[in-house]
């Protein structure tokens, strides 16, 4: 591969090169973000092939529209948002095709059932860690999605609200409520405090 110079380059540099039509930079954009997109996509929708199609569309559109794109601070936000939009569209039309009519359909409903933000099961799973995870697991799907975007992908509230198509206050509230219940556990149950200490040692 003849594009060693890109491999350690900053995201913003890669993006600029990509905007100029550099296909190596485009490939780096793919390599750097594919796991992120696969992870998010497969949590939104169980159908792996559909997720792949959507990711393909996202990248093809990205390449096709690059001359109309501006500079961006957060490529991963841009890609996650594009993927979600594309997947919703696909899921809605898949649903519409079933009933064989093209009426306006609210995408969120079809989408909701597909949510699956299952948490990682740690190998050294102790009772305490499971409690934290159980708590997170018991959250409503959309709340979990917000938590996922925030703590797994490190997005800010503006980005989360834009991706999920909700206003910024709702995104904030979703994360806040989850954090609040998490904290209640942490503060009220000494076992969890213990867990925190254990984690610190580990």
């Amino acid at each position, binding site marked *: 591969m003849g594009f060693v110079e890109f491999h350690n380059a900053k995201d913003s540099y890669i993006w600029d090169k990509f905007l100029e039509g550099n296909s190596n930079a485009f490939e780096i954009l793919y390599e750097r973000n594919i796991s992120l997109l696969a992870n998010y996509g497969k949590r939104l929708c169980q159908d792996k092939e559909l997720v792949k199609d959507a990711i393909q569309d996202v990248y*093809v559109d990205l390449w*096709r529209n690059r001359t109309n794109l501006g500079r961006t601070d957060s490529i991963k936000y841009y890609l996650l948002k594009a993927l979600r939009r594309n997947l919703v*569209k696909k899921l809605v039309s898949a649903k519409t*095709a079933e009933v064989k009519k*093209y009426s306006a359909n609210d995408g969120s409903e079809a989408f909701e059932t597909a949510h699956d933000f299952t948490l990682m099961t740690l190998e050294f799973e102790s009772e305490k860690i499971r409690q934290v995870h159980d708590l*997170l697991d018991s959250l409503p799907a959309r709340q979990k999605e917000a938590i996922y975007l925030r703590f797994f992908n490190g997005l800010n*509230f503006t980005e989360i609200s834009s991706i999920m198509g909700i206003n910024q206050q709702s995104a904030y509230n979703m994360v806040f409520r989850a954090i609040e219940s998490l*904290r209640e556990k942490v503060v009220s149950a000494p076992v969890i405090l213990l867990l*925190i200490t254990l984690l610190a040692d580990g």
Partner: protein
Amino acid sequence: MDFENYKLNDFLMDDSFCNSVKNPNSDDGLFWDTWLSEHVDKKDEADQAKKIIKSISFSDRSFSKNEITELWKNIQQRTSKINKKKTVSINFRLWNYIRVAAVLLPFIATSVLFLIYRDSPEPKIMVQIPVIQKINPKGQKLTFFLSDGSKVRLNSESSISYLQTFDSTQRVVTLEGEAFFEVTPDSKRPFIVRTGEIETTVVGTSFNVEAYPAEEKVKVAVKTGKVSVNIPRPKTNDVSGETIVLSPMEMATYSRKTNKSMVSGYDPLTVLGWSEGTLHFENASMSEFILKLERWYGVDIIVKRDKPVPKGITGTYTQLPLEEILMGHRSASEFDYEFLPNGNVIIK
């Protein structure tokens, strides 16, 4: 910001703090490192927040290495197709420049002769205004503004050229294909759309011009305001032939074959729908149907059947994948389809 009052929750909700945990080497990471070393009383709560953030982990569900490589190959295949189209349009663009140059040549020559024969040493600076050209391949639409503020929505497989800044007497654009115009009113400078045979002149209005070189008919449909259309006299290209004045909701259809034109009403959804992202068919023939789909989705559709479709195709679609549309008409119109790996379609 008074971080001094931060409690556990506040740390957890703070964008910059969360980022500092995920990326300790970022600016945020450095900031919070420094801040916490100066505010040791907040260390406990900040540490708790850090641990919570770190304990929220999700299982990895990425694709396998093979799947990732395979997916990239598909993407490359599709993007290389886009690249090829670009090359074609660059040639096309060059040709258009030559055409513009050919039109301008007599004027330049006359001016030069005039200047020479005037025998005057007076220095004249000729400012050359750049010609802008926008070209859409199949599957792409574009909205942009001209120097006078007029808005143009250019349909797929269409191109338009115009001077970067219009002169003081008229605003001229040259169109091949289809575009919807919302013209800024300016009674002193008529807005003229040249499309090969016919010329459309307006002052300030919105209207659609459909003039694909490969198609027999040229259509001008008016949404608001008044539009005058110049039709050439038969067998000459003299644009001062016949003038038709169109009112809102009227459409002029000019036949290239017969050189005849007629005025009628039109269905706004069929004619203008594309400019708002709606693909509409009203009792369309199979060939019309396919041509529109090819342009809209940027694919080639190969027809391998000899039976005509039993009846016209009707439907309205907004942002639907191509396959949905084909699926919806498959049984009614008695055809079958197959997607090729490169995204093209065979109709059987």
